[in-house]
Each structure stands twice: as C-alpha cells, then as structure tokens.
C-alpha cells in the first residue's frame, strides 16, 4: 500500500483545474447580481491565501475583497506591546510569546529591540514549551505574553491548567486574547471618524474558520439575522476560498441570507465544547479591549478570572506597567481600510513613512495585514 503523503492532503485543494472551474462559476454567478459585492475576509490567514494565490485576479469586476482585522499581531495596541517590553526588561524575567509578535514595535520599541538590549525574549511554537523553559530556569520568572483569537486561546488555557495542576510556581501570564464576533459587530456598527459616517462597505463575511473549529459556527448566527450580512465559514486553501466566495454569491443571487459552513471537514456548528469549557474556566470577558487601528471594542478581550490573580502578570507587575493608552498615528487610515472604505494606496503615509520594516499602522505590521500585502505584492493586484 502506498503511504499517505502530505501532498495527498492538500493537492486537491490547490488543484489548478478546480480553481479555474470555480473562477468560471463565480463569474456566472456574479453576472446574476446587478451590484457589486464586497466580501470581508476577517481572518489574516485568509488574507494571506488571497494574496499568495492572487485570488483577486480571478474575481469578476463586481466582487471585491475587504481585508479584515483578523491578524492577532497587527491589532495589538502599542500600550500592550509596551507592557511586553517592560516585562521583558524586568530582572529575572524570561518573556515568552508566539512567532512574529516579537517584531511589532510599541512606543518603546519591539521585543526584538528589548532582546538586543539584553532582555531574555523567546518565541515558541507551542505555549506548552513554557513548561520546559520554566524547569530549565527555576530561578527565573517565565511570563507568557498570550496573544491570538479563539484559535490560540485554548492553548493558553491548557498551559494555565497545567501550571495549576502541576503546581509550577514560576510561570505567569499576560493575557491579550481577543474574540472575533465582537470586532465584526464593531466594524458594522461603528462610526468612521474621518468622514463622520456609519457607512461601512461590507456586504458579506468569509468567516474565520480555525476560530470556528474552537468556537463553532454558532458565533456568527447574529450576522445574517440581525445585520443582514451572509457568513460562510471558509477553509484556507485556494479551492476552499473560491467555494466560499461562490457560496456567498449564491446567497445574493438566490436572495438568501444565512450562516453557512464551507469548511465542513473541520468546523461544526457547536465547535470544540471541551476547549470552550476550558476557556470559560480561566477567562472572563474584558469590558473593553483597544484594537490598533480600530480603537476600543466592547467585550472583545479576555482576561484572567480574579481567582487566578496570582498568575496574572498584569496584576503582579501593575506598579511598573503603564495604564495610559497610546493613540494611533493621526495620518493612519487603518480604521477606514478595515471598514472597506479606503484602499491602502489612498493613505498618505503608505509606502513612505509606513513600510513593513517600520510600520505605523496595524495593517502594515504583519504579512497578513492588508497594507503589508499591497506593499509586497503591489502592482500585480
């Protein structure tokens, strides 16, 4: 028997014939709709697929993508990054975080800058690596700077659970987990400061699907019902995304407005109940979380429950952590871009003061941000 190879798992989802076939189905469907449809892909992973595979080049003129705020690194406000920087600079602290968080600049610099100044900053692929770091460094305090949407929250919860059950006494947490539905609501509801209008341009959502592996597709129920925006929870391969777009267009041409799942091979309506329970055990909703580029979004953040205050680095180090927030740059129009009201190239500092190596706004921070993607892949799109 031939053994299963990785390529067997993805080949069909990147198959050029299938992608072309979907492109022609999308074109036919779009012709039935006599208006333009702006589809927001909320998740940074989707933005990445769209850019990497050049999907806008396969879309008819009346179908456009709006790149949403779903990159956990991009949306981290400066004052939270300042927290990470200050914690990293404390004596006897090893600051641990995930991937490209370490390159995002706060007002004092990035964690890379802190590391260059002698701080012990490490990135891990799995938060559980903290356990090994803690046992290798018993005289150090390990602070896990936890970031990410519903997708990564359970990993932090498992680490907390392990720390408590194994009685590990040198791991602490700085929690920056955020949730998707609240920010989607904010995008629809909020007033745009620059033009004093509530007019977002979002007609439908491609639902973040690894979020839904954990939280279920149920979290998007209100969007078709209360806001009249169709949602299709969609996978990350190009064939997935083409099918997701087609499903959205069909809802418009058939006059439906529903919450559908394209990514059925891993997403269910209810999601991962065990993971949800674990999250509920350790976290509360924070009443406000400030998003870089969007400002304060009600109920969009998580924080450790009061009974775990002894693990909460934000409480333990409260005397050294600044509470005042840092405003976004005045010329930055990330808020408008995220609402689909402006194109990255319309920003006066795009590509000049704001570049991937020295980002000003959230959308330029990581490769999953809209501005960074336009800067990089630019004029072919």
């Amino acid at each position, binding site marked *: 028997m031939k053994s299963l*190879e*990785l*390529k067997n798992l*993805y080949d069909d989802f990147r198959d*050029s*014939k299938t*992608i*072309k076939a979907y*492109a022609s189905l999308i074109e036919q469907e779009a012709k039935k709709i006599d208006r333009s449809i702006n589809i927001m892909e909320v998740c940074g*992973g989707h933005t*990445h697929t769209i*850019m*990497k*595979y*050049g*999907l806008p*080049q*396969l879309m008819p003129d009346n179908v456009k993508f709006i790149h949403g705020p779903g990159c*956990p*690194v991009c949306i981290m406000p400066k004052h939270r990054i300042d927290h990470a920087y200050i914690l990293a600079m404390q004596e006897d602290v090893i600051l641990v975080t*995930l*991937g*490209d*968080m*370490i*390159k995002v600049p706060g007002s004092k610099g990035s964690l*890379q800058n802190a590391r260059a100044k002698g701080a012990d900053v*490490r*990135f*891990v*692929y*799995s938060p559980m*690596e903290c356990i090994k770091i803690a046992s290798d460094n018993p005289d150090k305090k390990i602070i896990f700077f936890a*970031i*990410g*949407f519903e*997708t*990564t929250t359970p990993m932090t919860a498992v680490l907390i659970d392990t720390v408590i059950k194994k009685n590990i006494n040198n791991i602490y947490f700085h929690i920056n987990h955020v949730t998707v539905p609240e920010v989607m609501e904010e995008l629809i509801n909020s007033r745009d400061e620059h033009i004093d209008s509530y007019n977002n341009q979002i007609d439908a959502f491609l639902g973040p699907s*690894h979020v839904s592996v954990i939280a279920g597709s149920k979290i998007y129920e209100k969007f078709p019902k209360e806001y009249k925006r169709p949602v299709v929870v969609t996978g990350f391969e*190009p064939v997935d995304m083409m099918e997701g777009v087609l499903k959205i267009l069909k809802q418009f041409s058939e006059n439906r407005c529903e919450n559908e799942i394209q990514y059925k091979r891993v997403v269910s309506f209810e999601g991962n109940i065990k993971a949800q329970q674990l999250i509920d055990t350790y976290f509360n909703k924070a009443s406000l979380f400030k998003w870089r580029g969007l400002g304060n979004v009600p109920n969009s953040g998580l924080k450790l429950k009061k009974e775990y205050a002894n693990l909460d680095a934000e409480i333990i180090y409260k005397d050294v952590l600044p509470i005042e927030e840092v405003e976004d740059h005045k010329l930055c129009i990330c808020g408008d871009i995220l609402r689909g009201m402006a194109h990255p190239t319309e920003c006066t500092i795009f590509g000049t003061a704001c570049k*991937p*190596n020295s980002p000003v706004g959230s959308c330029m921070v990581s490769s999953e941000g809209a501005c960074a993607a336009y800067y*990089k*892949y*630019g*004029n*072919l799109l």
Partner: protein
Amino acid sequence: MKKSVPLSAGNGGEENNELISKVFYKAFKNDILLKSEDAAVLELDANKIAMSTDSFTVTPLFFPGGDIGKLAVCGTCNDIAMMGAKPKYITVGFIIEEGFDLRELEKIARSMKKELEVNGAMVVSGDTKVMPKGTIDKLIINTSGIGELEYEGISSNNISKDDTILVSRDIGAHGATIFTAREGIELQSNLQSDCNSLYPTVKALIDAGIKITALRDATRGGVSAVLNEWAKQSDICIEVEEDSIPVSPEVFGVCEMLGFEPTMLANEGTFCLAIKNEDASRALEILKQFSQNATIIGKVTDTHKQRVILNSSYGTKRFLDTPTGELLPRIC
C-alpha cells in the same frame, strides 16, 4: 572527564601550539601548512583567480546532514565554484569559546578535511583565538579561499532573454533542518541539510562546454534572494512557474506548518543557474546526474524589470519578494 579548550590555548605559547598540532595540523596537514611560516607562499597555474571569504556561526553546531566545519568549507569553496573557479587554497580562522569540548573540535576539523578533499583544496594558513566563556556562542569559523578560474565571464550582471533559469536540486533543506533543530520548535523529521560542495557539479558543466551566464548558491535569503538580486543586477524580469520549483515533502511540511515559503529558506548546497537557452536542456541532464530534482524553473522577460514574478498554474501572478527580517513561525 571530557577534555576542553582552556583559555590559555589562545595565548600563543605552549598550550596554543598543542591545540594547533594535535587538532588542526593533524586534520589539515600538507607541505605548505607544515612549513609554519608567517604566510603561505602559493603557486598558481592560472592567470586569473577567484577569492572569497565568509564567517560561519550555526546553532546547533552539528545538524542532520552536516556541521559547522563542513559548512565553513562548503560555504567558501562554493562561492569560488560559483565564479567558475576550482577551489584551491583555503585559510581558516577558529574563534573558540573557553571550555569548548576538544572532541567536538576534532570532529569538526575531521569533517572539514573530508570536505576539502571533495574540492581538491587544502588549508594553507590558519589562526586560533580562544575567548572567555560567555563572550561568544561556542565557535565561529572564518574561511577565506582562492580558486583558479576555469571558466571566464560568469557574472550576475549579464543575464538576458537568451538565458534559462534552473535550480540544481530541491530547495530549502538547510533552512528547514536548522529551524526544526532549534530550541523551542519541537518538531521531529527526517530532514537533512543540503550542505554540500558544488565544485564537482560546476566542473561537470564546464567540461561539457555548457554556456554559463551566471551561477549563485542560494544561501541566506534562499532562491528568492538570488533571483531578486539577478533581476536587479541584470535589469531584467525573471518569471518563474511556481509549480516547477522543486520542494521535498519534508521541507514542504515544515513550511506548511510554520507558514514559511520554501523560496525564503537558506540552502548550503543548492544553486541557481542562468544558462544560454540552447544549452539549458543539456545542462539539466548534467545536473540530474547529481540530483534528480534539478529543474528548469523560469525564463527572462521584460514584464516587470528588476522584479521576480511567480506564475501560478491557474493564471494568477504575484511578485516573489526578497525575504526581510528574522524567520518567525506564524501564530495560527
């Protein structure tokens, strides 16, 4: 008790001499080196020589497919080979952290010796320094080398529409191997670095009379850095068929999990070639004698000068950019 390198081994005195004779002379001995003069006096047949230098640091020092010693010889010899020259004389500088395991140092020297033999090159001069513990990360090796030119005119500035772009084997193996071996990334795989000497391959191309325009080994920055440098230096557009880029399933797996592009990953025994169109298929046949995965990946156009374009099999295009910053895994 394990033997280690004492700080005094860098003092220029007795301990220094002991380290040099027991480890380095033992591995590298040849008539020129053993003369122990202040400088090596070299004889050369060719009128033109190629010269290159590079310093090497890698964590871990020993990795699947190689070690820092093999890397240090391959690195400099490959740079020389990329100019159509035969690596001949090498100098080596060792900067060693106090307390470094002597057995490991011997192992590294033996591995260098083996790789020098592949290139037909020899160490003609060397230097050793020992730094106090904690001031450097274990070991840094510098190598410089001279090679005799066997094929003239290779340049990254002369690539034109008359050239075809090839790659000598599947890409990204070294970068993927080192990344998965580092601390904090608990990944197990059968990955092996591609760390290897390229002179034998280049010699085969030259011997067959292949018309070579440019060669460059795709080290840091990977294939995307090489192609972007070529596009800029020769003021051309390079168009690559994405599906044709050879990537092993293991490297692909690492990239899929961590969110990397194989074209961004470092190689230490893989090179890009710009070969005159009429010789491209013959060059490919020769490359395939060394690696079955050698492939023609693209052509030169003037669609977007100074840029590299990736064409997908379903009709979309995107730029292949030069990688920037530290290689960091994606979050989710």
